[in-house]
């Protein structure tokens, strides 16, 4: 059977891709002491590591495809077939849910041929692979391990992450080149004597952190169990901390880094709670069961336990518990008591919410979104890699990966969280003027879309958007980085303008990103950038969902509207920055196009941003992704509370939704164009009709006023509210919590010093006091001493009489 060997081969390749950056990190961090400050060696090593990683990942992807005969590309037919098969199984099990021969029969049906080592069986050919790397600890029947789990999603994520990371690393060679000096001057930091802060450059350190991050991120993707995800979850968090705080001298940077990590820890708290529940009730962290080499029943993984093999949660309505099942859908039993193993339904919800709590933190979802804009304190390549393309998307990735464990209630929560987030962030982005902050809010908003997609049952749609977003958003960040370098670290858009003439490559690659994120396309043709397809898929899911559950119509309306807002603010950004006249001539004069080392990656990324989703839902990317879709997603769920749309329903409304979304996006784009573009597109007119300028400006301004009154001001007000909410409420809560914590801890200290120590000291003082007072007895007077003899004898005698038993 070649599957085993192919699984190991894949693991090896991905393992190399995963571990190389770690080796790179080690070499770079130590090499920093050996190499001169002006050496680029660290960068080359880092690029080499991640580049080889990309090659490995890509090879693995190809190998996987070959090994599976590219079953994913054989269209949706096979997929539907498999889905149907699952449905059939589901019915079969429903009839004989408790126990009995039907399951045996079902088991027989899935005989040898289907038994892949993964325990998850989509098709005749194994497409998912898993295995164990090593054990962290074994406690009786419990084992915590480091596993790997490879399916098409893993492979795609690997390829995507390594590709983007490679581009960003290359870009960073250029971007960070001002660190290549013995005497770096940080203009944002002022020393006590009023001068700027001087320090040696930290070029190598940047790349070592980046390598460490790549290692952590890839480990997160490769992880075969939820605990391991948590491990790398924390590691990416600390890398993010290090990178945000890269300019350690800047108070704002270190504060932002702290904020990022601590806010994430709040989410991780939920994550841990989720882990505790699952661990306690399921006894395993693994996604899928372990291989059964010796023919014994495999230990099932979490996915099978909760969802069985048919994607359904086996709920006992009376006791409100969920039966845990094995990979064949059999209910698990306690080996001694033969009681069925169950988990209370409520706890399953809590566990799902808990794990999702981690996702909220990492993906900067409402209400923990506040850290991400601040995280822009880091160098721009960091923002591109960590805070847009990969780490923040990890939350979405996890929500997708862990989908089988989420109950419908959790999914609805995810959807609503995503919905709130995407709207909130988009509105804020509208008023932001810092170029990176606009992108940051945009990132939050887009992550909200992904969450929304997953929460609505559009599993593949959400992850589809993840991948496309990674490309175009990293592209845009890099482009903005290029702008920032070109403008000598000026990030305020009002001071820019017209840059496209000075830096055309940056401007137009940026434009590609903007179009992609806006989701523009020409209907009826294949000309559609990636964002169109992915956002379209989400909106379609939302529409189908709303059709099923009219009560939750907001989940459709809001993202649709926000699609327009997205297009608006993104185009606004582009127009603001690149189009029109330079608003700061002095700045403009010094602007220059970035060197090739920076624009090259832009070009590469722009290709992917534009074309990675070619073919839409029939394309390679989507097919690959949907191949990893958990069982049961395709058929949807019919339930009294919330129904989830199946593929068919989504497919039915796809066209309709596409049109709506496109309309929204186009509207947004047009509005942006009218607001900013139109104004800027007429600079020549302004100069030519210098005398008629006033009238023209008035008209223009009236135009602006109109939109201002209709859109901008309300949206500014709303955004202001949101920003204020962000600042006052959420930051307020955070600061309040911090203050409270500090206050409590002060009390705590008072208690410590006052009460506990006080008691001890009190005892000491009392004892000492008694000792001192005892000195008074020792008067030094002989006659009193003698008296004491007599008194003592008498006293003792009296006591003797008082206490002795009578005879």
């Amino acid at each position: 059977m070649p599957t085993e060997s192919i699984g190991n081969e894949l693991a090896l390749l991905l393992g190399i891709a995963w571990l190389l950056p770690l080796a790179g990190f080690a070499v770079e961090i130590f090499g920093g002491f050996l190499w001169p400050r002006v050496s680029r060696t660290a960068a080359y090593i880092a690029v080499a590591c991640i580049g080889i990683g990309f090659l490995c990942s890509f090879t693995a992807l190809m190998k996987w495809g070959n090994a599976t005969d590219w079953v994913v590309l054989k269209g949706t037919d096979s997929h539907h077939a498999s889905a149907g098969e699952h449905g059939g199984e589901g019915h079969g099990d429903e009839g004989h849910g408790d126990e009995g021969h039907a399951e045996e029969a079902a088991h027989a049906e899935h005989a040898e041929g289907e038994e892949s080592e993964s325990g998850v069986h989509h098709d005749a050919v194994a497409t998912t692979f898993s295995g164990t790397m090593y054990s962290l600890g074994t406690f009786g029947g419990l084992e915590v391990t480091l596993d790997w789990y490879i399916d098409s999603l893993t492979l795609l994520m690997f390829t995507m992450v390594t590709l983007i990371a490679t581009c960003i690393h290359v870009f960073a060679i250029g971007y960070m080149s001002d660190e290549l000096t013995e005497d770096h001057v940080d203009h944002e930091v002022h020393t006590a004597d009023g001068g700027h802060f001087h320090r040696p450059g930290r070029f190598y350190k940047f790349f070592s952190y980046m390598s460490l991050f790549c290692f952590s991120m890839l480990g997160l993707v490769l992880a075969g169990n939820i605990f391991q995800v948590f491990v790398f979850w924390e590691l990416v968090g600390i890398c993010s901390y290090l990178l945000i705080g890269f300019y350690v001298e800047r108070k704002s940077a270190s504060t932002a880094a702290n904020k990022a990590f601590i806010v994430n820890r709040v989410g991780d708290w939920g994550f841990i709670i989720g882990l505790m529940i699952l661990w306690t009730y399921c006894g395993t962290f693994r996604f899928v069961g372990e291989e059964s080499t010796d023919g014994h029943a495999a230990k099932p993984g979490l996915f099978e336990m909760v969802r069985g093999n048919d994607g359904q949660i086996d709920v006992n309505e009376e006791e409100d518990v969920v039966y845990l099942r094995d990979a064949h859908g059999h209910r698990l039993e306690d080996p001694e008591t033969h009681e069925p193993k169950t988990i209370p339904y409520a706890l399953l919800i809590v566990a799902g919410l808990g794990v999702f709590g981690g996702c909220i933190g990492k993906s900067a979802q409402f209400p923990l979104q506040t850290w991400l804009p601040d995280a822009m304190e880091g160098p721009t390549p960091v923002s591109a890699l960590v805070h847009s393309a990969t780490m923040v998307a990890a939350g979405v990735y996890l929500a997708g990966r862990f989908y089988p464990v989420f109950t419908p209630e959790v999914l609805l929560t995810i959807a609503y969280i995503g919905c709130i987030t995407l709207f909130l962030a988009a509105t804020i982005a509208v008023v932001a003027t810092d170029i990176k902050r606009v992108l940051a809010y945009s990132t939050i908003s887009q992550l909200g879309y992904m969450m929304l997609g997953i929460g609505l049952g559009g599993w593949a749609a959400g992850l589809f958007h993840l991948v496309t977003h990674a490309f175009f958003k990293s592209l845009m960040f890099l482009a903005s980085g290029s702008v920032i370098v070109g403008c000598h670290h000026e990030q305020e858009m009002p001071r820019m303008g017209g840059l496209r003439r000075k830096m055309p490559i940056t401007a137009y690659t940026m434009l590609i990103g903007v179009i992609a994120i806006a989701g523009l396309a020409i209907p009826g043709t294949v000309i559609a950038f990636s964002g169109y397809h992915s956002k379209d898929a989400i909106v379609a899911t939302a529409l189908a969902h709303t059709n099923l559950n009219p009560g939750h119509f907001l989940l459709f309306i809001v993202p649709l509207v926000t699609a327009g807002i997205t297009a608006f603010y993104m185009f606004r950004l582009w127009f603001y920055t690149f189009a029109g006249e330079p608003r700061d001539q002095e700045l403009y004069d010094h602007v220059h196009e970035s060197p090739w080392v920076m624009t090259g990656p832009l070009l590469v990324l722009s290709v992917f941003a534009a074309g990675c989703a070619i073919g839409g839902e029939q394309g390679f990317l989507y097919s690959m992704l949907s191949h990893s879709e958990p069982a049961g997603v395709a058929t949807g769920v019919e339930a009294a509370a919330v129904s989830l749309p199946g593929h068919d329903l989504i497919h039915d409304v796809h066209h309709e939704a596409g049109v709506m979304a496109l309309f929204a996006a186009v509207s947004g784009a047009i509005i942006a164009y009218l607001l900013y573009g139109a104004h800027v597109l007429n600079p020549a007119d302004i100069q030519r009709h210098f005398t008629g300028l006033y009238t023209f400006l008035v008209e223009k301004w009236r135009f602006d006023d109109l939109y201002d009154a209709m859109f901008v001001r309300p949206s500014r007000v709303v955004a202001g509210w949101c920003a204020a909410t962000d600042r006052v409420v959420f930051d307020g809560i955070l600061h309040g919590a911090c203050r409270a914590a500090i206050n409590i801890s002060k009390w705590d200290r008072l208690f410590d010093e006052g009460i506990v120590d006080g008691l001890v000291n009190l005892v000491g003082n009392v004892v000492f006091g008694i000792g001192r007072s005892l000195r008074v007895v020792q008067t030094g007077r002989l006659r009193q001493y003698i008296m004491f003899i007599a008194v003592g004898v008498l006293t003792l005698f009296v006591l003797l009489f008082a206490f002795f038993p009578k005879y």
Partner: protein
Amino acid sequence: MEVGLNHYLFVGAVMFVTGVICMASKRNGIGVLMGVELVLNGANVNFVAFARYTALGLDGHVIAMFVIVLAAAEAAVALAIALNFYNNHLTIDVDRGDELRG
């Protein structure tokens, strides 16, 4: 009324108590020592009386003899110490010796 054991014991007890009171009340060192003698002799009266009236027998007498000797020895030492005290304090008022305390 015949004089019996209890009468002797009573005398002994009176001597003892007197002696103790004397020790505790006299400020003069010699007076205190006299109190000691009274106490010891109170006990001696007891011994002799017991020797006469109970099975203690000869032992009582012998003890009494020894005590007398001992009392003399003790008195000698005590007087020497009192003298020493007087040399240093120029008084034998025992209340004046109150430097050692606490």
